């Protein structure tokens, strides 16, 4: 049995590539619960993790899956879970816990049609704003969206890196098309992948304050059992981790949560630009729709339409600067989505009369095709 897959070429599903990306990023714990169309991630992790001295566990539901993932991360092991809409709804409670306690972890949501049981085997982008606002309370999050097998690998690595660096849960939104499409993919060699690990304290245990502010707003994180005994709670806490109701401590704590993400905007807000330099019309797309949009932009160019594409890899924090810069040069922006308009709301929010925003929405469980986007570009 080959356990070292680095540098080898495979015909992989998006879901399988995501599992490989996680392992390459150093993930050694996975807890999950079966759900279509995300189950292949669990299946591959159950097979691969024991090969690399990691641990896979199938839990009794998605609530416990994320609970176990946070627990493992607190003990110092990079951890991930994967689910789809109904399970993602169940995870919202513990997702908030991970935000509040600043525990790095990666949560994959392979989007399917909703609400409720919805369309288990059809793609959708209906969970975009849930990923942003699903857990209660005011909180910053990082949400990435992937559009291909190779992105499933590379941006899963990115998700772990951002999660470790900023001590936040990172949500990866995939969808049924990306998850189940197979493409040839060469797993990169380990030395070609940048892997970021959380910063651990270098002070003696008696000096350690687990939630003390610093210039980055990201305190070093001690693993449980490493001598730095401290308290972790979902209550708002002071710099020692103990519950507090003092107004000055509450505000300082919550503002730090936002500041640490805001400080990292330049690095966190990832976009891909195609033919944007001279574009008159831009498409803003993400996930599997971005693939259709890539093709549509090429079709438009061959018909003399100066079209371009901004693929949003980071959905939240919303890459405002990139989008606004493109707004300044374009007469119109088309936002195709497999929902009734979730990212287009964000695009409209940052548009201060700079350009016209055109939505194109499809919610019949089918992927938006290149031809549909091309036709919309012709109309504009």
């Amino acid at each position, binding site marked *: 049995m080959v356990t070292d897959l680095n540098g080898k070429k495979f015909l992989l599903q998006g879901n399988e590539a995501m599992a490989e990306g996680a392992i390459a990023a150093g993930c050694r714990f996975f*807890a999950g619960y079966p759900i279509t169309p995300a189950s292949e991630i669990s299946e591959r992790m159950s097979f691969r993790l024991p090969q690399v001295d990691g*641990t896979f566990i199938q839990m009794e539901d998605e609530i416990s899956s*994320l609970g176990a993932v946070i627990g493992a991360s607190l003990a110092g092991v990079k*951890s991930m879970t994967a689910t789809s809409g109904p399970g993602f709804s169940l995870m919202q409670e513990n997702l908030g816990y991970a935000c509040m306690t600043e525990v790095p972890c990666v949560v994959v949501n392979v989007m399917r049609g909703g609400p409720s049981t919805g369309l288990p085997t059809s793609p959708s982008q209906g969970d975009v704003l849930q990923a942003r606002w699903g857990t209660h309370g005011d909180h910053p999050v990082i949400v990435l969206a992937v559009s291909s097998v190779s992105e499933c690998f590379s941006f899963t690595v990115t998700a772990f890196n951002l999660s470790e660096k900023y001590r936040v849960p990172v949500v990866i939104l995939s969808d049924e098309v990306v998850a189940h499409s197979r493409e040839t993919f060469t797993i990169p060699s380990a030395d070609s992948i940048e892997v970021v690990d959380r910063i651990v304290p270098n002070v003696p245990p008696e000096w350690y304050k687990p939630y003390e502010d610093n210039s980055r707003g990201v305190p070093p994180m001690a693993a449980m*059992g490493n001598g730095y005994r401290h*308290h972790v709670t979902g209550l708002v806490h002071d710099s020692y981790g103990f519950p507090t109701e003092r107004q000055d401590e509450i505000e300082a704590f919550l503002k730090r949560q936002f500041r640490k993400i805001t400080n990292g905007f330049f690095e966190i807000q990832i976009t891909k630009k195609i033919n944007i330099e001279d574009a008159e019309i831009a498409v803003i797309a993400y996930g599997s729709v971005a693939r259709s949009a890539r093709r549509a932009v090429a079709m438009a160019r061959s018909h003399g339409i100066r079209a371009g594409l901004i693929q949003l890899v980071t959905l939240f924090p919303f890459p405002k600067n990139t989008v606004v810069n493109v707004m300044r040069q374009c007469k119109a922006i088309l936002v195709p989505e497999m929902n009734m308009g979730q990212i287009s709301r964000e695009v409209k929010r940052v548009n201060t009369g700079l350009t016209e925003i055109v939505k194109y929405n499809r919610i019949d469980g089918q992927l938006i095709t290149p031809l549909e986007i091309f036709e919309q570009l012709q109309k504009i």
Partner: protein
Amino acid sequence: MISGMTQLRHKYLRHHKKFPHVWCPGCGNGIVLGAFIRAIERLGLEKDDIVFASGIGCSGRMPTYVDLNTLHTTHGRALTFATGIKLAKPSLTVIAVMGDGDAAAIGGNHFIHAARRNLDLTAIIINNQIYGMTGGQASPTTPYGAHSTTSSFTNIEHAFSIAELAVAAGASFVARGTVYHATQLDKLLEKGISKNGFSVVEIMSNCHVQFGRRNMMADPVTMLNWLKDHAVSKDNGSSMPPDSLQDKFTIGILADVDKPDYIEEYKKIREKAKRD
């Protein structure tokens, strides 16, 4: 000369900022905390090697006061976090303390699956038969016919027997004690924590403020006497006539079986995964 108990207090309770605690005067949680501290002291465990996790409720505040690796999780989910910690670092001794609403209502599914899975964790369940922190609502262990703020006209639901549920779900070690039988409690906790596999220690406790007050037992002494009168030792119970046991509960060790725990089994999985 410092007494033994004072020494333990200094060794295990957090000194700065955390006292007075949130529990009402006369609450059984203090007796549980004392028994827990004596148990880990007797087992000779290092503080750095113990994780003490809780869910939400009065019991959820217990880890805050103890100088261990402590974790106050979401309601009912303590065992799920404990599962992740134990699997990530099997050398740690992982103990979860929960209430009856925490473990048997919102966390009921996690509880039975943790027992079935037989991962080496210890679940301490403080059963005061009521939701105390939220103001005295009926819980899954509130007795039939009792009064609570959500069963003003008496409770028409029947109570879970938590320890028996754990036995049926496959826990390696199951015991029940009470805060009245305090010396027995030390030993039950010691055995539960040292047992390899999933252990459950259910502790019948008093909430005279939220349960007793509405059920004609408004002070701790009356409630402790109620615990004394309704507890039947495992050894004596079998010789008593069944009619006399109807409103009683058994205390002592209800199950103690040896079987491979999840970590041992998973080691074999890793070997297979690398070999095949």
